[in-house]
């Protein structure tokens, strides 16, 4: 309620003489009088909106910023259904059932057009535009001293991360997208501008730049009031997109492998130094099959060769409540949906067979047969605990059902839709690290010009993270040349005794009794070892050559086994295929044909034509 000059100015600028030509000159004077009068009273016309919050009543203090962040993550949760369907169904591991409608069929078989509701970009841009609006307001708040620098840093970084993450998601799905960084404040800004469109080769560096420019890559602290915050029973820390995980993935896309490895290592050390031997170490530390925090596929002690003694602890990472203390051993970002509130958990409808389940999506036969079906356990059985019993199960009618998302389903409350959306977890992250090391090792040369430290040696870390473990890969050999006993062995990532790999390639996995030492990575396990699988080892007869590509393909396959249906698949295939094509035109396209084609072959369908021209790799979408 003020009559500032600004208000009056606004008033005059908006006066419209609707029928001015019907009015005599004399009337103009009367009009002016009316206008003046209204200028005086105009301020009384403004209302404070109560149903909705007016811009002027928002972004006044840190509490408003918190409310915006909470609203934003509500919007983020609404993207889960589309993101999982587009990244998985539009790839090789997930398929439609006969219940699925034409729209889902089209996504699965690459025949979608831009009218398909699954490719509607509005929910994504809803998040992006909210981010743009928040970032602009945060800048204002900082300038107007409504924020301290520290508060600003945390809120700004988080929201920018959400925006980059969303852009990254849709950029990899749609290829060419409008890249907008300012909020829309008027209708004039809704004019289509071709110059705002960028393709993936421009988007990725732009996102890397945005992320590198963040004031902080750390998570929220007490300063913002968001760290450790719980809403209901849920700790919000699992919801905030992890900046380093996103940045590391972006680095891998951008060919910055050292930076990717470093960012992942930084993430391991987030909050200072390593303080626990459990978190993100994908540990294999279990004796009786009772330690639920170790997400292993294993066998009862001493019965390693008895298939009936199989203990699948791996599946626990999907079923446990996020409030469990060992949830954070594996989970980095994981959003829990409460059945009582919106946004409603979408996956029971899509994948479930009971209650509200419509059973529209299922694991592809390709995933069942060609991925999990051919894995060999270390005890010789052909089996992967992460497949049947891990990622999917057969129901009574003999249908494969994706169960990763159905662990919270309760047959006694069939209409309650509860569950989790998995975004980042250690299994995935450690494979990213393996990928980074594999590629970085390829750069060759020597660290600091010291010929004792060939960079190619880092591929041993790839092997350790993919297959076995740091402690089994990096033995410290006693001078006598005899392998030490486990009880006093010393394992550490190093070239040789006493010569550590430099950061970010050094892991202390030492375990010795005399002197007494327990390195934090002592119980680390490679991803395949955690699933009790035999190692994948390069040899010169392998079909995929050279070694770097062999391991890259092995990691891609391992990602399928480990993270199937979690919304990474299309991005993972695309990343490697693009990298290979850039390296040698056509090889990436061939990879795409091979990987994606397997699903089409299973269904007797024609494999889509992935020309070297990337533009027909992506989903069509209408951004206008």
């Amino acid at each position, binding site marked *: 309620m003020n009559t500032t000059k600004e208000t009056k100015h*606004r*008033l005059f600028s*908006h*006066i419209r*003489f*609707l*029928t001015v030509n*019907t009015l005599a000159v004399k009337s103009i004077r*009367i*009009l002016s009088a009316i*206008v003046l009068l*209204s200028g005086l009273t*105009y301020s*009384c*016309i403004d*209302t404070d*909106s*109560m*149903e*909705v*919050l*007016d*811009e002027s009543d928002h972004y006044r203090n840190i509490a*408003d910023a918190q*409310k*915006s962040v*909470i*609203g*934003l*993550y*509500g919007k983020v*949760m609404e993207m889960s259904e589309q993101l999982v369907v587009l990244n998985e169904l539009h790839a090789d591991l997930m398929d439609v059932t006969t219940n699925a409608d*034409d729209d889902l069929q089209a996504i699965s078989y690459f025949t979608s057009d831009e009218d398909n509701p699954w490719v*509607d*970009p*509005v929910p994504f*841009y*809803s998040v*992006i*535009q*909210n981010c743009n*609006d928040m970032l602009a307001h945060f800048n204002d708040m900082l300038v107007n001293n409504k924020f301290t620098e520290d508060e600003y840093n945390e809120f700004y970084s988080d929201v920018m991360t959400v925006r980059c993450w969303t852009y990254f998601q849709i950029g990899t799905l749609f290829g060419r997208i409008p890249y*907008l960084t300012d909020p829309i*404040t*008027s*209708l004039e800004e*809704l004019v289509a501008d071709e110059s705002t469109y960028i393709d993936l080769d421009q988007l990725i560096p732009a996102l890397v730049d945005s992320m590198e420019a963040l004031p902080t890559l750390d998570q929220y602290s007490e300063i913002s009031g968001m760290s450790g915050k719980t*809403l*209901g029973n849920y700790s919000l820390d699992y919801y905030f997109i992890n900046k380093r995980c996103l940045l590391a993935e972006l680095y891998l896309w951008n060919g910055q492998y050292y930076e990717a490895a470093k960012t992942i290592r930084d993430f391991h050390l987030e909050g200072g130094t390593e303080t626990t031997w459990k978190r993100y170490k994908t540990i294999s530390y279990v004796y009786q099959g009772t330690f639920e925090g170790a997400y292993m596929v294993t066998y009862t002690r001493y019965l390693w060769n008895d298939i009936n003694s199989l203990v699948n602890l791996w599946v626990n990472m999907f079923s446990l409540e996020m409030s469990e203390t060992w949830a954070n051993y594996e989970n980095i970002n994981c959003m*829990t949906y409460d*059945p*009582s*509130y*919106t946004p*409603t958990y979408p996956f029971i409808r899509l994948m479930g067979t009971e209650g509200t389940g419509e059973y529209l999506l299922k694991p592809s036969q390709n995933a069942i047969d060609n991925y999990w079906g051919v894995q060999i356990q270390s005890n010789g059985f052909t089996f992967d605990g992460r497949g049947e019993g891990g990622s999917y199960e057969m129901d009574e009618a003999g249908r494969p059902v994706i169960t990763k998302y159905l662990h919270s389903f309760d047959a006694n*409350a069939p*209409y309650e839709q509860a569950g989790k959306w998995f975004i980042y977890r250690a299994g995935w992250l450690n494979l990213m690290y393996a990928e980074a090391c594999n590629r970085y090792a390829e750069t060759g040369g020597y660290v600091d010009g010291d010929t004792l430290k060939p960079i190619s040696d880092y591929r041993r870390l790839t092997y350790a993270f993919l297959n076995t473990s740091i402690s089994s890969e990096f033995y410290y050999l006693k001078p006598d040349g005899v392998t030490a006993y486990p009880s006093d062995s010393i394992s550490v990532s190093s070239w040789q005794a006493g010569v550590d790999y430099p950061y970010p390639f050094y892991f202390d996995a030492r375990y010795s009794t005399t002197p007494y030492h327990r390195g934090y990575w002592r119980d680390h396990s490679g991803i395949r070892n955690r699933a009790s699988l035999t190692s994948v080892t390069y040899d010169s007869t392998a079909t995929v050559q050279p070694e770097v590509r062999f391991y890259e393909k092995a990691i891609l396959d391992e990602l399928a086994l480990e993270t199937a249906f979690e919304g990474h698949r299309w991005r993972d295939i695309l990343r490697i295929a693009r990298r290979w094509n850039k390296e040698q035109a056509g090889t990436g396209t061939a990879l795409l044909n091979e990987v994606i084609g397997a699903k089409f072959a299973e269904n007797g369908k024609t494999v889509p034509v992935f020309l070297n021209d990337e533009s027909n790799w992506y989903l069509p979408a*209408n*951004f*206008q």
Partner: protein
Amino acid sequence: MKIKNYIVLLMAIVACIHEVPAQTGTTDLTIKGIVISAQTGKPLAGARLELEGDKPVMTEENGTFSLTIRSNQAKVTRLLQVTVPGYGSKKLFITGSKTLTIEMNDESFKGMEQLIQTPFGPTSSLFSPYSMAAVNPDLSATVKSTPDGLFQGTVAGLNTVFRSGQPGSGSNMYLQGFHSLLASSQPLIIVDGVPYENYGFESLISNYQTNPLSAIDVKDIESVSVIKDGSGLYGGKGANGVILINTISATDASTKLEAHVHAGMSFVPKSVDLLNARQYRTYLGDLLMTSGLTAADIQELPYINQDKPVSDEYGRYTGNLDYYRYANNTDWQKSAYEMAYDQNYYLNIKGGDQTALYALSIGYLNQEGILSGTSYDRFNMRFNSDINISQKLNAHTNMSFSYGTRSLQNEGAASSSNLPYTALVKSPLTAAYKYDYQGNVSPNLEDEDAFGVSNVNAIADNIVLRNLNYRFLGKLAMDYTFSNKFKLDGSFSLHFNKDRERIFIPSAGIAHDTLSNAVVTNESQHRVERWFILYGDVFATYANDFGKGSKLIAHAGLRFQNTQSENDYAYSYNSSSDDFKSIGYGDLNLRKIGGSLGVQNWMSMYANADYQLMNKYLISAILAADASSRYNGLYLFPTVSGAWLISSESFMSDVEQVNLLKIRLNVGLSGNDDIGNYSNRVYYTAQSFIGNNGLVLGGIPNADIRPETLLKSSIGLDGSFMKERLQVSIDAYHHIINDMLTLSHAPAYSGFDYYYSNGGSMTNTGLDLTVSGRLLNRDVKWDLGMTVSTYRNEVTSLACGTLESDLNGAIVQTKIGQPIGVFYGYETNGVYTYQADAEAEGHYIMQGSIEKPFSGGDIRFVDQTGEGEINEEDRVIIGNPNPDLFGAFMSTISWKSFALDAKIIYSLGGDIFNYTRYILESMSGYENQSKAVLNRWQTDGQQTTMPKATWGDPMGNARFSDRWIEDGSYLRLKDLTISYAFTKLPEAIKSARLFITGENLLTFTNYMGADPEFSQNENPLYYGVDAVICPQPKALFFGLKLGL
């Protein structure tokens, strides 16, 4: 510019006629004449004749009179007013000298002059250049529970359609066509100078809308005027026209008491001819055969199997244990409708003294509905006063309070708790009460049946759907007269409305829909809606009489309105018992609450001037300047109007048969500000995040959002002929609606699907005709009136592109070049008599990637595109819900103490989508069907128009097509009243009148639905979509009115 042209034209006309005749002669003139009674022809003595500006004279014993006109006034047109006690008064335009025979009629006679209420007080219709209609109802025998009934048909151009036959449901009113697509289309209602919000608020009860007019007792109404032209005085709120309602006031200090009592009954409507149990079982058997079940499977179904349960020697039962449950022949419509009774008591007292006058009324209404379990109770009170504080200062107060309780039933499209719908579709095999294995009936209500349909009796008896309405209006007005030229008026009012709704749907006998996260056993819902409106209006009046029939009246004022609204609702499910009906007993996890708050400020500065020249030329102008919190800036709404009283011209003075001839021209702009409270701003709405609310952007701000505008040009003619025994009024109008609110498609990168913009425009062109006259004027008096209205509506631009709306299965299309909301569907051409016909034609539909051909007994859809496939491309316009003509006939015949009043309303040429028939003839599921399906196609070669029955209707035979579009023309005897006024009365009683009224006694229509008169929603798109709405019952009332 069109406006400019009109103005120039008007100026030219005024200039042409403005030549003042030169003065001739200097002798004074005399006008002589006689005043007689029109009925008897006898001269009337003591009649008072007042020539404008002169002293009055009285008639002699023989009725003669003589008036002297000074020579300088000889050529001036002057107004002569004649007043005779018991005969009312009369006005004549006099030019020059002549001999006059003035016929006086009784007070009930409606002559050429009517008193019309304007926002500034009453005015004579003779000197208004605007099209305005006065409804001066004879309320002595009205039984209407809401005032809408008064307007229906009586005002040409005002299309008043009752929403439903549920008690007190009110009507939707459209004045001169449709004016908006998304904003309100309802006229602004002003009660005693205070705007009433007349939006149809969302209710929890399906198809119900709060009717703000129902808070007014019809008998409290003193006058109503409908402003068609000149509504620009209300600026951005006037585009839909304005209805002014004034309530009771005392005219003099003597104490008068008026009592009114009536009682009535409404009759059960004619039931729909449905299949009986035997026919239904045969039909169901046929239908199920097409569902893939084998004959043996079907025979096992509990409602087909005829094996009665039999007990063996150990008391164990074998056979079909559900036999008695499904061995009935129930007419469910009997449970849904019942005879209803009404009663109404009303008393008003008027009186006062020299300084203060008051009018007080109190009323009670109890109205039952013909749908079982429905009723309307209302208690209303009103107190109006006029206080003379000093000679110059007056105060007026208005206070009214009304409390209404409604028990309602859900109507409209299918839902499990919809009484009229369920009564139609529920299988006749089922029973209302439980049976045991021996066929003994129990007093307990039967549960949901095997078809998933609720028990009609459970809905009728046990569902609670209650609406409580409180409305309070308080107004204080003061006026101060500075001189006979200047006056200042000011008023301030407070208006409060609260709607409280309570719903309980028990588990027993009712089928419930499932929630996304639970199975529902019972539901309770609550809603409270509050409106709080502060309104102020201050205006100054300047009036000057220049003599010789020239006058100027001008007003300038300012209005301010602050509206605060609140809407809170809660849904709760699964309380542990049907006896726990309160919202608090439901399952905590399933509870949903929500609500909204809204604020609007509106300010309007307005001015008008009416100039009258020489009793011949009238010119008037209005300018309103509006500002509102809903939009930025100030908007101007000008109106210019002119009229020429041809009958006042000297060359008309000898044309005896023409008493009045007036031509009116009007060009004006008004607005509609129902554009949403916040569309012009950046705002944030709540976003749920694991049970907490954060804030996210609420929409794309449209800073340019502005009120819709209606530019109206109209030309009118008012005439009075044959000694005022015939009145004719014609209005032709053309509306250009610009800046019509639309939802425009937003680019996806904005993060929104749509935004609000002023992206549409349309036109309305129409004609209103009113004719009334006194046919007989002796012992028997017969007044007959007629209104005829027609309009054409056309969308001229639409930023959002062609709109298709799915309303209860009807697809209505809004497209440039068409009226809004026409029916858009498939054209049909009978049924394929032979399989060979279908094969020869080769039409098919696509199911996924499979072609499915039509076969014998399927509907033969017209393949408009000629490509063989019947798909959405083959749709065409199959009907237009807008009537070609609508209006009413009104007749009053009186003889001695008897009077017979009748009102016949009609609507011709509008199409209706008959949803009820669509459900009852679609032959695709368990729903009971009408007898028409007995004629369904069953064998190759069968000649019929009814297709075959197929489970689930895979070929879409029942899709939205011209099969369901019917001509909705009707003519209805709406009201018929016979009354008798007692002449011999005891001294204490001043008057007494006994009456019998019949409502809806006769309806002529070819429409096959329950009632061709209905209006599901105020949004024009719903016009003509009839989805199971309670018909308006035939009713009979007996009443008595006493004056004390």
